[in-house]
């Protein structure tokens, strides 16, 4: 729990100005620059690496990377496939260079790319990827990564996309993109399923009109004995029942489940807003069917692979 101050006395601009001290900043900066120049001119980097100066040097360098205001796209462009090298110590005290680089994998019928990743499908014939083992290597290739997102990248296959492609991953996985140092979860194309009209029970005491739904759209044809009730009882007056209504249309409005019903008999055109309902026994049958179909669709939706059209960037899957 933190301290909380309510309505603290404000500080005037003069008070703030009294804390200004540019000279001391300039002095501190000059001192640091001097120290760095001495390090660079008198000793080789190798000297420092073998005598424990590496930690300070690496910490400073990564600090600078962290402060850089480059955007993610620039980072992607700036990463060569094979040039970046990392420095590591080995047991016999010799300094060796271990490469930290993107690996290119090509697709082939014998050895498809998707079998090496958590993809179900991939439209590209090649992919650049890396599996990091330690934080230092991650910072080498992804210098802008935030410390909290760094741990997340460990031991995961990270892949780099230069030109857009589409991929599918299984339903229990998620795709993450590196955006300004953070892993951001990417939304996938939702599984599209057939629209189901939820049956409603006929309201007692409200007028309703039976309409033969042939030709009004497949979604209605699954319910027999469909009746339409108006939003407002007075909208469906007695005059509706004076005609045969050989023609008409049913169009869904912007409000889900509400339709614009237009009935036509020669020059006579009448219209009302309403919704489909069913009488007691037909409703029972229909709601049973509807529930069965809905459960089946939800089950399909849970299992359906997630599809993505991905753009240039750096990604991983979890």
């Amino acid at each position: 729990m933190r301290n909380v101050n309510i309505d603290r006395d404000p500080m005037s601009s003069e008070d703030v100005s009294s804390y200004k001290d540019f000279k001391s900043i300039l002095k501190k900066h000059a001192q640091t620059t001097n120290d760095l120049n001495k390090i660079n001119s008198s000793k080789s980097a190798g000297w420092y690496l073998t005598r424990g100066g590496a930690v300070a040097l690496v910490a400073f360098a990564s600090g600078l990377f962290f402060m850089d205001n480059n955007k993610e796209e620039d980072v992607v462009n700036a990463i060569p496939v094979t040039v970046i090298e990392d420095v590591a110590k080995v047991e016999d005290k010799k300094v060796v260079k271990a490469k930290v680089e993107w690996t290119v994998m090509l697709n082939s019928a014998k050895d498809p790319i998707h079998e090496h990743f958590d993809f179900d499908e991939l439209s590209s014939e090649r992919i650049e990827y890396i599996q990091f083992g330690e934080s230092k290597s991650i910072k080498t290739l992804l210098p802008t990564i935030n410390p909290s997102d760094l741990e997340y990248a460990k031991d995961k296959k990270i892949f780099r996309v230069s030109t857009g492609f589409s991929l599918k991953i299984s339903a229990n996985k998620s795709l993450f993109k590196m955006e300004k140092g953070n892993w951001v979860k990417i939304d996938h194309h939702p599984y599209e399923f057939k629209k189901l009209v939820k049956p409603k029970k006929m309201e007692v005491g409200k007028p309703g009109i039976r309409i033969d739904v042939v030709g009004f759209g497949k979604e209605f044809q699954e319910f027999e004995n469909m009746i339409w009730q108006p939003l407002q009882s007075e909208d469906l007056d007695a005059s509706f029942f004076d005609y045969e209504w050989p023609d008409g249309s049913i169009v869904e409005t912007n409000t889900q489940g509400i339709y614009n019903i237009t009935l036509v008999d020669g020059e006579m055109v009448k219209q009302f807003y309403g919704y489909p309902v069913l009488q007691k026994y037909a409703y029972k049958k229909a709601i049973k069917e509807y529930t069965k179909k809905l459960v089946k669709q939800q089950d399909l939706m849970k299992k359906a692979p997630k599809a993505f059209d991905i753009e240039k960037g750096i990604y991983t899957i979890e």
Partner: protein
Amino acid sequence: MINKEFHKTEVQINSEQEDIEAAKNDTKNFEVLYNRYHEQIFRYLYARVDNQHLAADLCSQVFYKAMLNLENYSYKGVPFASWLYRIAFNEMNMHFRRNSKDRTINIDSTNVCELEEEIEEQESEENKEHLLKALSGLPEDQLSLIEMRYFEKMSFNQIAQIMGITENNAKVKVYRTLDKIKKVFKIKS
């Protein structure tokens, strides 16, 4: 409330770029930028601590780091002010990781009322107390989001630039934090 340092005309941006280039060539010229932004960076830091001297030390460290890394700055849509705020944000977080007791929430009564409205709660002394408790229990990044958005009236774009995230991500994070406050609030009520 529009922060004019985030909303500059092309002429102002170009003129500032000249100041930055001059400072890159000679660090003494950095004083122009220091004088321009000292007060707002100081106030940003002082809003999060209870000690003027500490705010001054942190502020000095922010400008020192900015000077040290000025070579890395070039205008790519992120204003210089945002870059400074971002350094201040990182510097402050680093300080609070080591000295969490220094963290203070400084809030105006009007901001409390606005936040109460935002989480759809009525103004009352009891609610105010619950809200402050909920705020003081938030993780650092979520508290910063609320402070910037509701106390300092920053736009999502400004917050995104300072935190180094996308504008959409900033929105999502702010709304998630509000939801969290609502939940904590309900439990405490």
